[in-house]
């Protein structure tokens, strides 16, 4: 893949580990958009998303030492940092309370068992709309809402084994979707 990369990934990583600010500047210019797209597809609140993007870049800056390039691509690592920070934010008590208040005042409703939020058609989340409905729900709940398979099993009243196999099938379909 080449997105106009100035540095080969290994060189970028080594410069980042030396805390070179110009390398970090490049990292931001190059990856901020795709990481932001993941954050906003999980977190509906824009101000919170902005704070999270900052949190994510500070985390990358601090934890770049712990990134091991034999265990995967730099983006994969950063994507997981961004997703984890976003999931932590929306599953925190504060956020859950304010979300409840919002739902009560704005009369947001549920449709077909899927939680409708304004994050639905934004960023990376767009790709799940190409999945079958039952698969889309599982990918949304697990990847974008951060529920465990056990929680999903109880929520949807489906056996845990079924959740597991169905999610695996959903991801195989996702692989086909993103390849296209």
């Amino acid at each position: 893949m080449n997105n106009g990369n100035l540095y080969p990934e290994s060189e970028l990583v080594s410069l980042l580990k030396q805390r070179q600010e110009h390398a970090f500047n490049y990292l931001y210019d190059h990856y901020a958009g795709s990481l932001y797209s993941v954050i906003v597809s999980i977190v509906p609140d824009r101000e919170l998303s902005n704070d999270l993007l900052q949190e994510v870049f500070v985390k990358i800056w601090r934890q770049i030492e712990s990134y091991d390039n034999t265990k995967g691509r730099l983006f994969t690592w950063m994507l997981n940092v961004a997703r984890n920070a976003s999931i932590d934010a929306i599953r925190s008590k504060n956020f859950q309370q304010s979300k409840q208040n919002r739902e009560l005042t704005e009369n947001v409703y549920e449709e077909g068992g899927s939680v409708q939020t304004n994050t639905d058609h934004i960023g990376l989340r767009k790709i799940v709309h190409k999945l079958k409905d039952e698969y889309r729900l599982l990918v949304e709940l697990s990847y974008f809402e951060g529920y465990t398979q056990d929680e999903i099993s109880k929520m949807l009243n489906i056996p845990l084994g079924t959740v597991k196999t169905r999610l695996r099938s959903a991801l195989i379909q996702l692989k086909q979707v993103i390849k296209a």
Partner: protein
Amino acid sequence: MDLDAYIQSGLIESYVLGLTSAEETAEVERLRSQYIEIDDAINDFALNLEKKAFENAISPPPELKEKIFAAIHNDHQANPPALVQPAYDEPTLQARIRNIRTWRIIAAASIILFIVSAALNLYFYNQYNDKQEAYQALLSERESLQANNQIYQTQLKEWQSAAAMMADSTMATVKMRSPKGKDDAATVFWNTLSKDVYVMVNKLPEPRTGRQYQLWAMVDGKHVDAGVLDLSCTSVCKMKNIPKAEAFAITLEKEGGNKVPNLKALYVMGTI
């Protein structure tokens, strides 16, 4: 192992998306190092996901970059990374550590020596003070002994001369008695040859302040002044020379003596 089935199981996608459990993650990482096919499948999916994320990128607000870099810059200053400092070469570092160790030992040894020396100084100083005090005590004791010795010598000489005087056959002894009592209150010695007069105080009471005993000689019925008794005289006191006398008397007079005796204050008298 059926690699195709494994690759088609969805586990690889779960792994890349961070949806696997700790055991599943460990399993995938173990297998990817064993089977290049699995490693390829992981990289393929990660790359496609990355591409999709780039296609769907959303630009964050432009002012955010400055804010984020300010935060990073602050963090950088608050937690400076160890790597920014040039690392010392291993041998240099070893030598430095050894050097520091040597100096530490020297410093520790000097501190110990200093403490020991200070303690010894204090100990010897205290010893010196004790000895100095003991020496001063001995010195003053010796002085007081010497002074006492001199006093005894003087007293001995006085008593020797008194004894010699009493043994002298030319010496007339006059016992002075109080008109009230029988006791010898004092004794007057009168040398019949040299006419020298001495008084030995036996039981005369101590005179009041401002008063002094005075000796009188009775010559042809008249009182002749024979001198006052020196207050410091404790044994035998030499009085005035009296060529001729029938009797002696001691009266209490004002300090320095009188020309005429105050006979009301007559204490003792005796005839030769």
